[in-house]
């Protein structure tokens, strides 16, 4: 018996028991919100297509790794061949710890911590599996009549847990309360070019490569070259004066601190703030390596050597001097009559004529920043 069938055997009686326990009813509507965490990579519902991950329609009863037209990792395909079929139990186990349950899956997602979240999520996903939706629809809630107006925001809002009523130690209005050191440490994670804000820690190119392959390459490509329209992270050196410049970390970004700061606060997309400080050092080192700014796989980036790394385009920026442009500098009274010679002739038509919401994919069209 494969390990997946074993888990099933263990889980089955448990789940029977659970039926008698008064769990908060799983709620598909709340589940739709939980699904926001998956949306970066998965689509579900009418017309859903494969994205970074496979589409999730008719997931319940699907053998793992078998959605048509999607290229799975060898690990997921193998799990399916060994008998892994998606249902309540297996999805609970997978979504709680994807890489613990299917070793080697390329799904770069840390997992959902709360069981109730997974319950709600599965209730929602069931609404997109034909025949799997909860049998008894919840009785339609009676229309909530607006007997009394809801309390206004001002009255509702409770005070932040303050040590004691705001001591009149600060300011003009004596509003708010002092922030504690721990609170500041929890939020103040920004890093500046001079190294201000860098945490203790370290990581090597080789460590970064493993993390990148696991958590970043699905969107940014193995070499930072990008999959589809996701951002390119490497290359483009010496293209800034080209007709079509390629602006990347290596070719354009002036400071390394921005790489650390941004990855730490916003990546991986859809699972922000999940990386350790050491992970971010390793990933930053690896991005430098992808851009040929460091070439040694044993290179270790740390707080100590961070500010010594210089970016190729560090001198590429100037201050705003728009006002010196001829059309602004003169501030001349504009011409009203016979301002241009001859009759106007069309030199260019709109390239994209029919900008409907479902316009065809515009390969080679301009992209937005």
């Amino acid at each position, binding site marked *: 018996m494969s390990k997946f069938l074993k888990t099933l055997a263990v889980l089955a009686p448990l789940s029977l028991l659970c039926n008698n326990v008064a769990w908060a009813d799983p709620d598909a509507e709340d589940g739709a919100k939980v699904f*926001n965490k998956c949306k*970066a990579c998965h689509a579900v519902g009418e017309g859903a297509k494969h994205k970074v991950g496979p589409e999730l329609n008719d997931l319940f009863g699907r053998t793992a790794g078998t959605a048509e037209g999607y290229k799975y990792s060898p690990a997921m395909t193998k799990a399916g061949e060994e008998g892994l079929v998606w249902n309540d139990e297996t999805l609970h186990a997978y979504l709680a710890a994807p890489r613990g349950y299917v070793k080697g899956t390329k799904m770069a997602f840390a997992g959902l911590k709360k069981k109730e979240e997974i319950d709600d999520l599965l209730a929602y996903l069931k609404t997109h599996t034909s025949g799997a939706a909860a049998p008894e629809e919840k009785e339609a809630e009676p229309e909530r009549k607006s007997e009394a107006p809801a309390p206004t*925001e*001002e009255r509702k*809002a*409770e*005070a932040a847990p303050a040590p004691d009523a705001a001591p009149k130690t*600060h300011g003009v*209005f004596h*509003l*708010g309360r*002092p*922030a504690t050191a721990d609170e*500041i440490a929890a*939020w*103040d994670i*920004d890093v500046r*070019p001079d190294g201000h804000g860098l945490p203790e820690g370290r990581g090597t190119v080789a460590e970064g490569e493993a993390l990148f392959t696991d958590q970043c390459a699905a969107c940014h490509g193995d070499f930072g070259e990008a999959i589809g329209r*996701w951002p390119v992270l490497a290359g483009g050196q010496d293209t*800034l004066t080209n*007709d079509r410049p390629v602006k990347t*970390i290596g070719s*354009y*970004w*002036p*400071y390394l601190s*921005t790489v650390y*700061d*941004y990855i730490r*606060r*916003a990546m991986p997309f*859809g699972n*922000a703030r999940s990386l350790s400080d050491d992970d971010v050092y390793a990933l930053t080192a690896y991005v430098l390596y992808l851009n040929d700014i460091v070439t040694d796989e044993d290179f270790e980036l740390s707080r100590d050597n961070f500010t010594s790394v210089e970016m190729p385009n560090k001198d590429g920026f*100037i*201050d*705003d*001097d*728009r006002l010196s*442009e*001829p*059309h602004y500098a003169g*501030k001349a009274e*504009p011409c*009203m009559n016979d*301002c*241009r010679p001859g*009759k*106007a002739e*069309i*030199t*260019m038509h*709109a390239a994209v004529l*029919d*900008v409907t*919401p479902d316009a065809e*994919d515009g*390969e080679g*069209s301009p992209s*937005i*920043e």
Partner: protein
Amino acid sequence: MTNTPTRRSFMKGGLGAGAALAAAGLAAPARAEGDPAITEIQDWNRYSGPGVDASPYGKPSKFEAGVVRRNVAWLTADPVSSVNFTPLHELDGIITPNGLCFERHHAGVAEIDPHKHRLMINGLVETPLVFTMADLMRFPRENHVYFLECAANSGMEWRGAQLNGCQYTHGMIHCVMYTGVKLKHLLDEAGVKTNGKWVMPEGADASAMTRSIPMEKAMEDCLVAFRMNGEALRPEQGYPLRLVVPGWEGNMWVKWLRRLEVGDEPWQAREETSKYTDLLANGKARRFTFLMDVKSVITSPSPQAPITHGRGRTVVTGLAWSGTGRIKRVDVSLDGGRNWVTARLDGPSLPKALHRFYHEFDWDGSELFLQSRAMDEAGFVQPTKQELRAARGPNSIYHNNGIQTWHVATDGAVENVEIS
């Protein structure tokens, strides 16, 4: 339903289907037996409609269902970090309805429980502080109407005419009345140290957006806002709290605002280095190009709002704005910038807000090249696209405030073009 084609059914039938448009028109058919809209009793004239609570939060008429924000799916990799556009061609006046204000998110719309929302001020201040929403509402409030324009508005048009509709070419802008408290009050409350020269706002969403704002601007007119057009901010506009940075690029108006840090130098965040820097032809890029320049666009007629009534009395209308202050004058050209007439500004003229202009004329049915050109109270005049490209090269992307040309064909269809 009658069989009379409406303007809406034309719009659904496809944009720029010009010939049919002009032929059919909107004018009521004058038949011998009279207009059935008058001679026949209509349902709404006979039967009562829904009662008062049918729609506790009112919605637009079902006949306005096409007046919505739209995106261009292929512009970005994923709708979670993407943009949609305000339907400028369907609007009038200077205020954008809350539900039509364009959206630009970097990690989707954060759903924040206002009771769990906090605003922290830390860095170079005497007393780092934490405020609840209730605390913030106890500061003196102010109301101001401001436009918010994304620096990438019209960015797709840098190299030439691209998208056929002012919703897409100019729709990354909106203008609402904000209620909030002066950022200055909050900073004073914490006490900015003498070496505090920059302020960094940070969002509470999963992109944790940050920008660096010079202290003079922060103290001058920035607001920390919790309402737009009288009601709470919409989630997609930063509920419960956003920064308002009047006249400056939209990216700095951090939504879901949770922290303000004071520092002695800018942070060089991703959004002010990798993005929102303007690459010039010589390979150097301008940075900290905060101000939104003087700009205008004709919103109707435009590609999504063709002339459907045939020749005769015609209303040209549009919007003008400048990050410097008020708009002083808008000129309109019907012949592609050869000759100009001064348009009529109507409605309130408020600094750093949208201004509405009109130009009425008798259309003789001949081809038109419509342009508008704004001038602000500081004397800056909206440049042509050619002038901008000559000064900046083809890859500047941001801050495209060039004069827009709409070609009106003899059948009333309108197209986005560039001209000699």
